[in-house]
């Protein structure tokens, strides 16, 4: 008696248009794979911003910041621009403080209300890692300077506060150095640097996720990924992310869902996925 009843009920779905039960996570946004497993990225690039911008960073409050090239009859110069994530950007006011003449590309902190930027001066040679705070009206004001080290190359985005971490490529030993500090305090190098032997290559640029557990870095040929179980541990052995183009301004979101970069005159991103 039970078998015929089951068959009748089973036939009801096609008749009444009832869909099969789907696993709820089918359409869920991607999250990072377990630590120890590198995320895979799609081979389909998407335009995030149609403008010649680079060093695009995003925050957890939906804002983004980038350095954009502006062309005039007198030549090209950089503008610092901000806006909503994956939306057009508009210029913001961000100027070097006294004693400095240049700014490296500023990078948003995860909270979105502060940015870190390396200020430089050519003569006398000087540099400092500075914190700026977002004011109303699209301007950024200096808050504090933090001396990190001599011979700074490129700096990564910082991790979430109050104690932040940053990765720095240093021009002297070609290693990747990790510093920790607060927004107004001194920063100290907390671990031995990652040497060329540790990484298997020379890192030109590294990006650090907001939780500090994952890095993506580029050398001259490839893009590499590494992670660690806690923010105070050393990163494990890096692996290559295949087919990810080599740029020196990669930025991976904390949930690993997107990997941003500049190229082809735009800001682009790759979604996590295998297609």
């Amino acid at each position: 008696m039970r078998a015929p009843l089951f068959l009748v009920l089973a036939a009801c779905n096609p008749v009444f248009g009832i869909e099969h039960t789907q696993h709820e996570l089918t359409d869920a946004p991607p999250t990072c794979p377990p630590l120890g497993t590198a995320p895979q990225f799609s081979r389909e690039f998407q335009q995030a911003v149609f403008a010649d911008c680079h060093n695009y960073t995003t925050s957890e409050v939906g804002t983004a910041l980038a350095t954009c090239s502006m062309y005039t009859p007198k030549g090209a110069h950089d503008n610092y621009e901000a806006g909503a994530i994956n939306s057009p950007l508009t210029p913001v006011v961000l100027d070097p403080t006294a004693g400095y003449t240049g700014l490296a590309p500023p990078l948003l902190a995860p909270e979105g209300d502060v940015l870190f930027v390396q200020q430089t001066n050519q003569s006398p040679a000087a540099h400092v890692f500075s914190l700026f705070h977002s004011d109303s009206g699209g301007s950024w004001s200096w808050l504090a300077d933090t001396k990190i080290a001599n011979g700074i190359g490129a700096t990564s985005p910082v991790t979430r506060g109050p104690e932040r971490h940053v990765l720095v490529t240093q021009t002297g030993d070609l290693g990747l150095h990790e510093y920790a500090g607060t927004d107004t305090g001194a920063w100290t190098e907390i671990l031995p640097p990652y040497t060329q032997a540790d990484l298997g290559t020379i890192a030109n640029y590294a990006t650090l996720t907001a939780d500090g557990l994952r890095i993506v870095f580029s050398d001259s040929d490839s893009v590499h990924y590494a992670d660690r179980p806690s923010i105070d541990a050393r990163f494990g052995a890096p692996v290559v992310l295949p087919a990810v183009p080599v740029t020196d301004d990669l930025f991976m979101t904390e949930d690993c869902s997107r990997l941003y970069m500049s190229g082809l005159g735009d800001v682009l991103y790759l979604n996590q996925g295998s297609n």
Partner: protein
Amino acid sequence: MFGLHDTHSQADALPLGCPALGTPPRFSNKFHQVVDQDCVDYTTAADADLAMATCTGAGTTAVFTGSIDQPLSNAGITAPDPINVRRPRLFPEGNGAYIVFDNYDANGDDELAEFQLANGTWQNVGVLALSQWTTTFTLPTYFGTPTRAPNRHIMVAACPDVICNDLVVHELVQKDDRSWIEPGAPYRDVDLGVVQITDAPNLSPDGLRMLLLAEPTVGRSQTFYADRPSIDVRFGPLVLLDTLPENADFLTADCTRLYFSGLGSIFYEPQI
């Protein structure tokens, strides 16, 4: 219940073709990475499964070929030492290509060489007699993709004077005796409404459509589209395709794909 599929319009499954003349094609903002090689100047044939590009690898740059969207390999195309070859432009038929010889003559001028594909090898059959347009003044000179034979059309961008502050575009037509004529006046930036022409337009195989790289304002070069009702008339006004990546200027014959290169790869955007 009986395994019948939902009814669909048959048009759903048809591939996109070119829009009507007068209407520029529109493209997705998704870039599909099809060839993970450091190549530029990617062109595809319309009548054969053949692609060609200039690729750099292991410290050398050469003309590479392969199937469309597949890895490319060195085509073995060489020029008399020490001349370099670059900027290949496949014929729509897939049986030949125009390729630039750098510094070909004693004046250091570039020339456009014709290669034919025979029995799997590329044979140089001579340089095109274009000096009337390309070597009057100084470099640079640029060449776009040709139309079908016979009487191919090709666009050449050349300096109009020694100063070379801008480029002008000449549309040349090959006569039956293989010589070239310029039936109309050249296209100048002021005529086209752009600040500066930055490359030679690529023509569609039927010669009715072209993509041109130019600067709409000072600075960034962008892609413009134009078409015309027949191959013997001048192109209509340029339309800016304003969301395309830089250097996106090769459109397939059926308008379904727009190819471009950068970031060490070759990409396309599909028509939408």
